[in-house]
């Protein structure tokens, strides 16, 4: 699916946060990847891995401490003001995790959706109203909801509003930060299907951040795995899930295997304030050697389209195959009732 020209590329992104006590927290440490046109890149990692910070730098909510961000062929790392609005805000959009906090409780749905058009002075008021109506239908919302407030909608409906808002300016890239994490499985399915339909119809690219491995496997073409601020593995989703190269990726993948093949990590994830020397994963890695303590493993190409940051790529493998997904065999009844006792 990924084509030659990437829509966005980040290069050596670093983000430091100053924390009380004069110390510096390096939340993101040298992250590079690209998102192809029409592609979904899944960004996976545990809390504190820096995945949301990467997303915020990509969409230029935060400015990177070092490194660069390219978008649609232009360097957008240092843009500000009108140029930032024209080159980034009009072309890249974000869908947020919580549908209840990402919508202004004092705006009606119609106002929420019209705002991007108003901000960028697209069309007249009447045209905007029609655009809002069209978009609401496109994402499966009754246009009559335009006069409602977000709190009057269900979680799934609100997330549709969030997606519609992101689409209003016809962006080429959407950054989705755990857009279904607050939804129930049955509603999550509705939203995920919508996102996939939109990608197919509009040629959108997604950076999809999630901690849900099943989800990332389902909808991303490529996957990037982060651990404590560093990118440890990037590659084609099917390949990474079949043969993870980095021990951390192997561990994540093993969580979807049957219990006896799971690789449980040792101890706790270290605090980003004092990260281990050398390889950041070595404190929990089952195959760590002395070398891992000294040398930071670079993110190198280990196979075409695969990159991993490990001195011993591929040495830790989860055993077995994927645990059987519980796809129930029996179809639901469509035949007429046989026993109509009904108590």
């Amino acid at each position, binding site marked *: 699916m990924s084509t030659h020209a990437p829509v966005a590329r980040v290069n050596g992104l670093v983000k430091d946060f100053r924390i009380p006590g004069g110390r510096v927290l390096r939340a993101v440490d040298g992250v590079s990847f690209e998102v192809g046109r029409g592609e979904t890149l899944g960004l996976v990692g545990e809390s504190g891995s820096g995945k949301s910070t990467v997303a915020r730098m990509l*969409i230029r*909510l935060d400015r990177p401490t070092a490194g660069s961000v390219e978008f649609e062929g232009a360097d957008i790392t240092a843009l500000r003001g009108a140029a*930032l*609005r024209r080159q980034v*805000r*009009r072309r*890249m*959009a*974000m869908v*947020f*995790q*919580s549908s209840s*906090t*990402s*919508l*202004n*409780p*004092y*705006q*009606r749905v119609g106002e929420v959706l019209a*705002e*991007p058009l108003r*901000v*960028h002075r697209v069309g007249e008021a009447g045209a905007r109203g029609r655009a809002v*109506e069209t978009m609401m239908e496109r994402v499966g919302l009754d*246009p*009559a909801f*335009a*006069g*409602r*407030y977000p709190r*009057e909608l269900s979680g799934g409906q609100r997330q549709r509003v*969030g997606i519609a*808002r992101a689409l*209003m*300016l016809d962006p080429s890239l959407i950054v989705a930060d755990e857009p279904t994490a607050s939804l129930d499985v049955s509603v999550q399915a509705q939203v995920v299907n919508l996102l996939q339909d939109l990608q197919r119809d509009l040629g959108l690219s997604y950076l999809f951040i999630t901690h849900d491995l099943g989800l990332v496997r389902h909808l991303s073409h490529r996957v990037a795995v982060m651990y404590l601020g560093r990118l440890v593995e990037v590659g084609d989703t099917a390949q990474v899930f079949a043969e993870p190269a980095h021990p951390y990726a192997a561990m994540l993948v093993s969580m979807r295997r049957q219990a006896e093949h799971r690789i449980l990590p040792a101890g706790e994830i270290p605090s980003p304030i004092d990260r281990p020397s050398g390889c950041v994963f070595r404190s929990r890695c089952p195959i760590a050697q002395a070398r891992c303590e000294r040398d930071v493993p670079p993110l190198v190409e280990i196979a075409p389209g695969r990159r991993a940051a490990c001195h011993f790529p591929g040495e830790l493998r989860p055993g077995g195959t994927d645990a059987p997904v519980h796809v129930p065999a029996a179809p639901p009844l469509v035949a007429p009732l046989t026993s109509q006792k009904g108590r």
Partner: protein
Amino acid sequence: MTTMAKTAGRTRAPRSRSRAAETARRAWSDASGRIAMVLLAVLVLAALLAPLLAPSDPAAQNLAAASRPPSWLGGEGGHLLGTDTLGRDVFSRLLYGLRLSMVVGVVTATASALFGLLLGLLAGYYESTAGMVLMRLADVQFAVPFVAVGVALAAVVGPGVVKLMIILAVWGWVNYARTIANSVSQVKRMEFVTAARTIGARTPAILLRHIAPSVLGPVIILWSTSAGVLVLVESALSMLGLGVQPPDFSLGSMLADSRTTLRLAWWATVFPGLAIMVVVVAFNLLGDALRDAFNPSVRTEHDPELW
């Protein structure tokens, strides 16, 4: 569905009630809110209609009819709340005094609310710069008892109701600004503000469209309670002779005038004080009801269980 049918459908589906209307409805449906609103309406009407309601000229002295007890305590001359030691009708003075007290409370509360809202928005949004300055300023302001400053200032600029209101308003904004800055710094971290940034909204638009509506609740609540407090403060300063100057008078200055003649005509002290209390109660009740209306809490009306 055809476009026409859709349009018809949209017009049929009513827009849901606005947040403001909903809040007002909740405040009204609350018992204390209803009492507060009725009470305030009565007070405002009484103040407005004072010339019609007052049985006699509030300034007219009549030494022959001095210190008459209220009529229902057997006082002669049919003075509802008696007369003071100069023979002025206490009820009439109460109505006129109410005017100034209410004006001081409402106008100064509104002025400092507007001023505080503006500065609080900026201080909360630019936390590390404007916010720092504001907070240090607030620390200093907070350390000096208000009455001390009022007294010192009044000594310098001279007493007078307009000056008093200016002093009160200027001194009051810090409290607003601090509360609002706190709310703003919370709201600005919410995802919907980030969302507004990602669509390219400019800072003024974010402040006005996205942040301000969320902090308006605290401002209105604070406005209501501070109006009550300001009525109290005005009367306190009037007690010290620094507030309203004759021939003008407020409820507070009525108290001040009559305090030395407590033995002769206690009613001239008791009723203005009661009136102040009623005004304060009304504003406080309104503040409470608004607080509940703005934050419809999930807290149930049931006793907690600790066992």
